[in-house]
């Protein structure tokens, strides 16, 4: 790596909590613009927030877990090593606005507030909450709930058994759960996809000309409320479910003795593609509220 003029660089610090007492950390590192922050934790909690300084501050309250910190002017990496029987670490991290973040945990909840940069966040059983991001954003949990709001850029968010809550996005979204509900409120993108297997799907936002929108569930309901008027070819597929639409449509299920119902109808110029599938749930296509343009 080419040498970079570095401000006060803190060399690698390893704090081994061999003593019985808890070893807390409070370290502040000077970083350059665009420096990245990465955290790997096990259990406890992770809170990441922002301030106006060109520094990263790491505060950790631990009951015996070892915390390793590797810092340079271009990146700060924090890891925890749980010791037998203990392992909770509560992190409070303060970073400059826009810092690209990567944080992974096993059971800790992760909360990121107003950093407004790129973020890749994951917890296995903990929940993840992200408020404000710009750029590529990726959030996942296996059994925790995941939530993202105020995102500008591409959002990929999923939980396996938790709920997925998305609001206030300007950009493309892919949101998935298996047994949880997926809710997309005020999502403004050209390519939006939400799916779950047994949960419900909700969506509100504009349907742009030329865009692609897909909402799928197996047994859950879909409640889709596009803003204002739309131009879309709507393809609906269901096996034993129902559909209710505020737009007129001609229902022509494939004829026959026992048939899945799948049909298509056009609204306006048919420019966008809107795909609605629920195997056994009910599909609601409702006219949305007054346009929320101007929100951002």
């Amino acid at each position, binding site marked *: 790596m080419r040498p970079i003029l570095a401000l006060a660089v803190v060399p690698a610090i390893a704090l081994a909590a061999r003593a019985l007492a808890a070893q807390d950390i409070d370290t502040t590192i000077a970083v350059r613009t665009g420096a990245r922050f990465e955290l790997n934790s096990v259990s406890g909690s992770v809170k990441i927030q922002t301030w106006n300084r060109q520094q990263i501050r790491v505060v950790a309250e631990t009951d015996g877990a070892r915390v390793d910190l590797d810092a340079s002017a271009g990146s700060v990496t924090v890891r925890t090593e749980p010791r037998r029987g203990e392992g909770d670490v509560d992190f409070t991290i303060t970073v400059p606005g826009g810092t690209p973040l990567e944080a992974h945990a096993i059971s800790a909840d992760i909360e990121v507030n107003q950093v407004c940069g790129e973020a890749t966040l994951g917890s296995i059983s903990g929940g993840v909450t992200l408020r404000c991001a710009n*750029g*590529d954003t990726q959030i996942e949990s296996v059994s925790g709930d995941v939530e993202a709001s105020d995102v500008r850029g591409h959002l990929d968010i999923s939980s396996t058994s938790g709920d997925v809550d998305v609001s206030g996005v300007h950009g493309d979204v892919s949101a998935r759960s298996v047994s949880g509900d997926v809710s997309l409120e005020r999502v403004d993108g*050209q390519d939006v996809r939400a799916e779950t297997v047994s949960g419900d799907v909700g969506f509100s936002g504009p349907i742009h000309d030329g865009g*692609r929108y897909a909402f799928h569930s197996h047994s859950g309901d879909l409640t889709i409320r596009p803003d204002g008027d739309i131009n879309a070819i709507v393809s609906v597929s269901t096996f034993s479910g129902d559909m209710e639409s505020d737009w007129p449509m001609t229902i022509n299920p494939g004829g026959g003795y026992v048939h899945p119902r799948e*049909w298509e109808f*056009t609204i306006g110029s048919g420019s966008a593609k809107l795909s609605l599938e629920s195997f056994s749930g009910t599909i609601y296509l409702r006219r949305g509220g007054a346009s929320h343009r101007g929100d951002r």
Partner: protein
Amino acid sequence: MERALRRPEDGLSRPPTPDRTAAPGASEAADVALAASGDQRAFERIYRQHVARIHSLARRMLGGEGDPDELTQDIFVRAWERLGTYRGEAAFGTWLHRLAVNAILNWRRTEAGARGRVDEGVDAELIEGARQAGGEDLDLEGAIRRLPPGARQVFVLHDVQGFKHEEIATMMGVTAGTSKAQLHRARMLLRAMLER
């Protein structure tokens, strides 16, 4: 009102470039699954399938700066580390492609950013330099190399790789207007460099 049955869209992500290699389909899905669980031989098959495209992308985006070989290796190592995050909803090639573009742009930000904003150079000098150096044999690839970095990246992402201006704007952290302006500039420069 239409009646015709149409296959509901499954994979919404459209691959930015038309896939010139034969689509491996389900056997690649199996390789990806195996690689995600640690099978390096499966990952090597994936590598062989995609390395030409990724390396070409790196070469063109970097111009003469940096080492496309090293960057290509970085990209595949990063893909290996991140396989756990691949969903299977987009074609794997699309996912890998996007990861590569981000890695290349990030490389530029960290390596080149420290030098400060490189002014893009005076167009007339670039054109003259290209004509003298390339002579009769300057082809499109050679001309792309000579583009200033911003224009080069937008041109490669838009015309070679097929991304849209909105996508490029998000990836590069610029406005769509900047992307369009850079694209036009790149095309005009290329025209000037290539025409006698």
